[in-house]
Structures are given as C-alpha cells and as structure tokens.
C-alpha cells in the first residue's frame, strides 16, 4: 500500500491507459473510440513525463555561466530534459492521428448517418 502511495503517479497512468484501451476496443461509438485513443496517449505522455521528473531538480542547461555557478554539478540533481522533448513529438503525432481519425469518422457519418459501429456494419451488409 505504501508502495502504491509513493508511486501514485504510475497508478494514475495505469488507470488512464486502461480507460483509454477499454474505450478503444469495447466502445461501439466511433467518436468514443477516438476519445479513448486520446486518453490512452495522454496516459503514455504522463508516464514519460513522470519518469523524467525529480524533486528540487536543477534546470538542465549547460552554459559557460552555469558551469561557473555549479562547476561540478551533481547529475542526479538535474532534471532529465529528454522525456519532455520526446513527448512534444508524441503530442504532435497524437494530434495528427486524432485528426485523421475524426476525419474518417466524419466521412463515415456522411455515408451512414451514424457513429454506431453495429449500425454501420448492418448498413454495409445491405
């Protein structure tokens, strides 16, 4: 239990990802599938951000001035900038995917006047 409280960020990440995954796979409504996709991606983004975060961390900038101020910086005290940069890319990818997904959903709605997967499949069988 103590372990769970100490790592509550990971618990939230797992809950978010499970909500997203369930919504992507089990929901019949195409828009809800898209929402699930976005939640799933948000969970992963939070996961990455939280593995890079540290308490009372220094800013990871190496300049001449910073070298003078902290001549021998303790690497363990510097925040890891890489995860945030990676997630900037992942957010861009996520937005693009969501855009394509919604565009497809819109096209499907124009054809079938419905977002319901079962109804669409029924329509296609006719």
């Amino acid at each position, binding site marked *: 239990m103590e372990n769970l409280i100490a790592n509550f960020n990971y618990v939230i990440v797992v809950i978010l990802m499970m909500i997203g995954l369930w919504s992507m796979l089990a929901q019949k409504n195409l828009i809800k599938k898209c929402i699930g996709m976005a939640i799933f991606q948000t969970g992963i983004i939070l*996961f990455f951000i939280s593995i890079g975060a540290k308490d009372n961390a220094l800013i990871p900038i190496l300049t001449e001035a910073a070298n003078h101020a902290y001549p021998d910086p303790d690497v363990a005290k510097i925040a890891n900038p890489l995860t945030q940069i990676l997630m900037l*890319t992942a957010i861009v*990818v996520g937005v693009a995917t969501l855009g394509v997904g919604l565009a*497809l959903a819109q096209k499907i709605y124009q054809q079938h006047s419905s977002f319901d997967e079962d109804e669409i499949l029924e329509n296609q069988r006719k």
Partner: protein
Amino acid sequence: MTEHLPIIIILGPLLGAVLAAFTAWFRPRLSHPLVVVGLAISFAAALKLVFIVADAGAQKYWLGGWGEKVIPGQKEPFVVGIQITVDYLNTLLLVAVSGIALLTSVYTKRLVDTELAGRQRYFYALFSLLVTGLLGITITGDIFNLYVFMEIAALSSYALIAYGRGRAYMAAFNYLIMGTMGACLYLLGVGFIFAKSGTLNIDDVSAIIPELGQSKALFVGFVLILLGAWAKMAFFPFHGWLPNAYAHAPTASAAILAPLATKVATYAMLRVMVTVYSIDYIIGSPGIQSLALYLSTFAIVVASFFSLTQTNLKKLASYFVLSEIGYMVGGAWLANKPGLTGAMVHIVADAAMTSALFMAIGCIVYRLGQAQLDDLKGVFFKMPVTMAAFVVTMAALIGVPPTCGFFSKWYLIQGAAQAGVWHFVAALLLSSLVKAIILFRIIEIGYNRVPHPAIEGNPAIPRNEAPLSMLIPTAAMALGLIALGLGTSTLVNTIIAKALPAALAP
C-alpha cells in the same frame, strides 16, 4: 559524398513527398515524376550501400553531425544525437523497400489515373511519405525515432486506404484504431527501456541491457514492444483489420501497402529481438517463445482456411499476406541459425512476392474492372503475360524451386525441424498446399470454363493486356523472384549470415 548515403536514402522520398504536395496545387502533372525521381535517388543510394556494407561492415551516420560528445570530467563519450545505421540486418531490406517502391510508383500511374480519376492529386505525395516512413523504420538506429517513422508510415497508409471510399473508410478507421494501439504500446515499451537504461540509441541500449541483468521492467518493456509490433504487422490475433483494409483500398494503394507495410513492421520486431535485446534474452524466456510459435502456427492455419473461402482476388491475396506474417514471426522465434536466416530471407523474398502478386492482380483489375474469381473466365487467353507472371508468383508463394519462396521456406522448415517444433513445420506445409489448391482453382476457372479458342467454331478471345507501363514492372518483378531465388545463397553467405548474432548455436 559516400558517407552521406544513409541519409540520402530517406531524403529522396521525403523531399519528393514535400515537392509533390506543393506542385499538386498548381501543376498536378508534375508530382508523379518528382516522386519517381526521389525514389530512384533513394534506390541508387541503397544499392550502393549494399556493396559498401558487404565490403566494410556497418555504416553509421549521425544526423546533423551530433555524434558522440565527451563531457569534461566524464571519461566515456556519450551519445547526444540520433544515429542512423546501415548494417547487415537492414541493408537488403532497404534495397527491397526502395526498389519495390520505385517499380510500384511507375506501375501505379495508369491505375491511379483510371481508378482515382479526378482526385489523384495528393496520391503520390502520400505514397512518397509512406515510403519515407518505411525506409526510416528500417534505417534508424534509435528506438524513439523508430516510433516517429512508424507513425509517419501509418498516417499516410490510413489516408491511402481511405482513398478507396465507401467501405474503405470503415476499414481505414479500424486500421487506425489498431495501428495507434500498436504504436502506443510500442512507445510505452520504449519508455520502460529508457527508464532502465537512460538511452534510446540501439547500440547503447544493447550494450547496457546485459549489465542490468534480470529486470522485470525490461521484460515488461520487451513484451509491450512485441505486442505493439504484432498489432502493426497484423499478427494473429491482431489481424482483424488487414483483409478489409487491403481489399477495400484502391488497387494502387494495396500494391504499395501490402508488400511493404507488414514486412517493415516484422523487421522492427526482428531488430528489437536481435539487436536491442539479445538472442540469449529470447532463449531465456521460453514462455513467450513457445507462445509466439503457437500463435504463428495459428496465424498460418487460420489465414490458409480463410483464404480457401474467399471469392475476391484482392481479399484472397490479403489472407496470403497474413499467412506469410506467420512464417516470418515463427522463423524469428525459432531463435536458431536456420530459423533466423529463413526469417531474414523471407522478409525480402515475401516483399518481392507480395509485390508481384498485387501487381498482377492490379493488371487484371485494370482490364476486367473487378477481381471476383468468377470473372477470371478466359483470362489466360486474354492476358497471357500477366497470367504467366501471376503463375510464377503463385509458384514462389507455394515454394517451387528455383523461386525465392522455396529457399526461404527451406530454411524455415530446417530451423523448425532443428528446434523440434513440428506443428510449425506442419503449418508451413499446409499453407503451401492451400496455395497450390487456390492456384489450380484459378487455372481451372481461367482456362477451362470457356471453350478453347483452338477448337473449331469457337470465337477466339481477343488478347487485351494491361498497358506496357504496368505490364513491364509486373513481368520484371516476376522474373526478379526467380533471380532472387538463384541469388539466395550468395546473399545469405555475404550478408545475412553476418547479421546473425555470433552467440547463436549453429
């Protein structure tokens, strides 16, 4: 100049795509030649690199010159940039991807003009972007960069499939959900590796993982990456999206997606298995190994049975793609020398075979308008060259010597026998049998359900081949299958044997 060849492979199609998208606004006719030129540059660079790699070993390139830096006070240099690598494992696949893309870009021109008349404007920009993504996945030496290229390829393939309209929208949407899930699981796995090892560079990760020893986080990361790659490559049980997506996509889109997209995802799995983690790691986790082998057997058997019931040629071919994925995953998970060799040969061979198959189907669709099996009556008299290419391709898929399909299957069966995985051997043989049945059924429909023109009193069926710009690539690809088969032993000895991990038992 030669040291920049690795990046030129990606830049060719990337610039081609950007320029094609721009020219599509004011001069749409210009976009196709631009894309062809971009792909030709990429193909030439990839071909040159094969010889360089065969001579001098792996070529590494640091993007933007951001290579290894030495921090004052630290002894070891550490990696700051993104690396791209051409080594024994991916050099052949780079040639296969860029070569097939080049041939297909020439081949699809007429098909696009008729099938997508009036809305083909952005087709070649997307086409080129897809190839950029696929080449990027193959060449990159950075596990996060691989994710980005995976999504570049995936996003353009959703759009290419949705070009088919009608049912294609729903097929593309299902692919999007499945593909995004796969990519996200992959990304999560990358997160686990990064958290443990602190680096994303494949060489660095593979050096650090053995030092970390047994770690649950690394194991979970491996499983997540594996699941992601399986969803991307439509491996059983994640295969549901593929047949509909490829059957309802325009024939021109299917001709580029079917041969390359799943094969490159399989390569990504192989890269993670062989280079990022080591082969010892796989042998050390027998639970997943036997699970993967059983799933491969199921993939082959299920796809074979479903292919028997299909009446549409495009859907039939999509089920062939599914069963071939079972071959490659199974071969890789045998984790012995012939099995891995077979998987590596089969990735290249299957890309060529599937490409030839979809090209022949495209020619048939171009002339007959559709591809129901019942429409094929008399097609052997009408399109003899196309059907000759089709029969050669089917022979390669069945595994008739001297086509390339025989040799890769030979390695796979050898590997499975060595590992004692008899259910996989049985599945391989069953799949060949099913493909032979389907070939003979098509021959029966195409030859025999019409009166033979040589018999007196029967009107001759006029020859009506597809245009030369489609026929020549189809015939070239089919002949290439035989050439690839004859060259298999050379390729295995000079390149593929060196890609195998040294620790592997013979």
